[in-house]
């Protein structure tokens, strides 16, 4: 288990617990009772800790190295997944995975950022930072989904679109802009989940939908706290402050009406129990797809555009 720095008290308790268990296993003493008390204590400790997470701790959890990624969810939620590759122009971007699968027997199109679970994989996935090809692959498959009337489900988890030479030359900005534009008028249901990091245009590039939800330990805003700190405070050291100031947690985003809801995670975060998290998500997705299907296609695009039209806060002066 990997513990975050703020989980130190829990990590210490786990150490004790392991020692007790070891002693118990060696059969020197019966430790069952103590083990049980300690487990209870961990539970309580964890509950209080997770109830009072700061914005920065949320950011840390969203980047937890053991956090489940798109493919982990696909494996647990859907059946018959067929991965589909390539943007038909340049190449296949490994930072975005996509494909068709079935949910309760019905076909869906899944598109999501993919990070790696170890160093090699992380490099292969470019740390979840997509190039223009990734966004164009996503758009190609969204159009396919539209044609064959499949709902599109997006899983968002990126520290940002890749800021590289080739990415710029091949039109990173255009690719993201095009996706945002096309997604706002795609004639099929789009359901989006922020499952980790929701950084800026890189997230929004596959993040425009009829409903957008955030998992409990995620963040979503215009810039990462680190980059915000470098630009506004002119130093890397204010990321904690920046995370606070940006109000980037799911609770804030929901309060601002910029997302449609929050999906709770198992105690200790999504990484503590993949199966439980996937089960929660699966139920959430099915419910929402059913509701959206009931709302019907007729005014879907109008509603979607209207929703984004209303985002923004400003003052209107009396003229």
């Amino acid at each position, binding site marked *: 288990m990997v513990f975050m720095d703020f989980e130190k008290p829990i990590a210490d308790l786990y150490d004790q617990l392991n020692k007790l268990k070891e002693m118990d296993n060696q059969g020197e003493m019966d430790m069952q009772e103590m083990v049980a008390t300690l487990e209870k204590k961990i539970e309580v400790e964890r509950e209080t800790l997770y109830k009072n997470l700061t914005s920065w701790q949320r950011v840390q959890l969203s980047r937890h190295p053991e956090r489940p990624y798109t493919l982990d969810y696909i494996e647990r939620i859907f059946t018959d997944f067929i991965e589909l590759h390539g943007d038909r122009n340049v190449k296949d971007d490994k930072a975005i995975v996509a494909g068709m699968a079935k949910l309760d027997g019905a076909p869906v199109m899944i598109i999501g950022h993919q990070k790696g679970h170890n160093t090699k994989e992380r490099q292969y996935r470019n740390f979840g930072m997509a190039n223009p090809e990734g966004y164009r692959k996503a758009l190609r498959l969204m159009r396919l989904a539209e044609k064959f009337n499949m709902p599109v489900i997006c899983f968002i988890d990126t520290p940002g*679109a*890749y*800021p*590289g*030479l080739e*990415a*710029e*030359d*091949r*039109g*990173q*900005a*255009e690719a*993201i*802009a*095009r996706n*945002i*534009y096309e997604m*706002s*008028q795609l004639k099929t249901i789009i359901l989006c989940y922020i499952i980790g990091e929701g950084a*800026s*245009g890189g997230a*929004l*590039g596959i993040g*425009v939908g009829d409903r957008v939800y955030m998992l409990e330990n995620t963040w*979503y*805003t*215009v*810039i990462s706290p680190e*980059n*915000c700190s470098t*630009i*506004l*405070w*002119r130093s890397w050291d*204010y990321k904690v*402050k*920046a995370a606070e*100031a*940006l*109000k*980037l947690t799911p609770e*804030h*985003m929901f309060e*601002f009406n*910029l997302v449609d809801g929050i999906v709770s995670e198992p105690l200790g975060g999504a990484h503590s129990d993949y199966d439980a998290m996937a089960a929660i998500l699966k139920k959430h997705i099915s419910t929402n797809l059913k509701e959206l299907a009931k709302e019907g296609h007729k005014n879907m695009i109008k509603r*979607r*555009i209207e929703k*984004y*039209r209303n*985002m*923004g*806060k*400003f*003052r*209107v*002066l*009396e*003229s």
Partner: protein
Amino acid sequence: MSWFKRLKEGIQTTTKNKKETPDGLWYKCKECKEASTMKEFRENFYKCPKCDYHARIGSKEYFSIILNPGYTELFTNIVSEDFLNFVDLKPYKDRLDEAQKKTKLVDALAVATGHIGEFNIPLTIACMDFAFIGGSMGSVVGEKIALAIEYCIKHRTALLIISKSGGARMMESAFSLMQLAKTSAMLTLLSDAGLPYISLMTDPTTGGVTASFAMLGDLNIAEPKALIGFAGPRVIRETIKRDLPAGFQTSESTLENGFLDAIVNRKDLKNTLENMFSMLGVK
């Protein structure tokens, strides 16, 4: 007779770098460091008369260059609010007050409607002002673009958006990010209405502005030598850990890479736009 003939342009001594000139009478070019009179500079469409450098200008200047006299500014009553109580080194509220005082502008985008050219083609322009917090896009910029689009649809006018921006306004956090979606979604309505939209990118056009409406024109055009890109040059340099090639992220390279229809000199801007809009037509 090279004694009397200057072989290289300009005065070659270093004094030119030292000389301070009073504001208002002289224009000193940022690019070639040459001075010209303000009158020459203004008559040359705010370009350096010596090297043709396109100086950064504001919405008022663009409106008067492009639109026929008698245009009206719209939606001037929409102002930014510090609804997040955002404080970095300075409160956002103070930044807004200072910017308003300094620039005499309401926010980083102004909208005007009028006509262009001898055929009086109806045109609405939404133009960004870099002087106002780096031309950053917050809720007000997004709302004014949305209103401009609705105005175009209601009054059947063409749309020109002039971008000049460092990107999204961080002090409005996710609200500024959602302006990418808001403006792009609204552009689909303009397109459905069959009205033409030309995007003009000027120095600089970066970040969330490029990644939304700036790249979504029926035609995308730019002024010469403008910085156009998604990520800022500094961020890219830090990521790839080497120097950027010359001419990277310029109008010229953006055209070569296939993302611009044309590069237009500011002196030809009005004619070119009139020509383009007359061909696209306002149905």
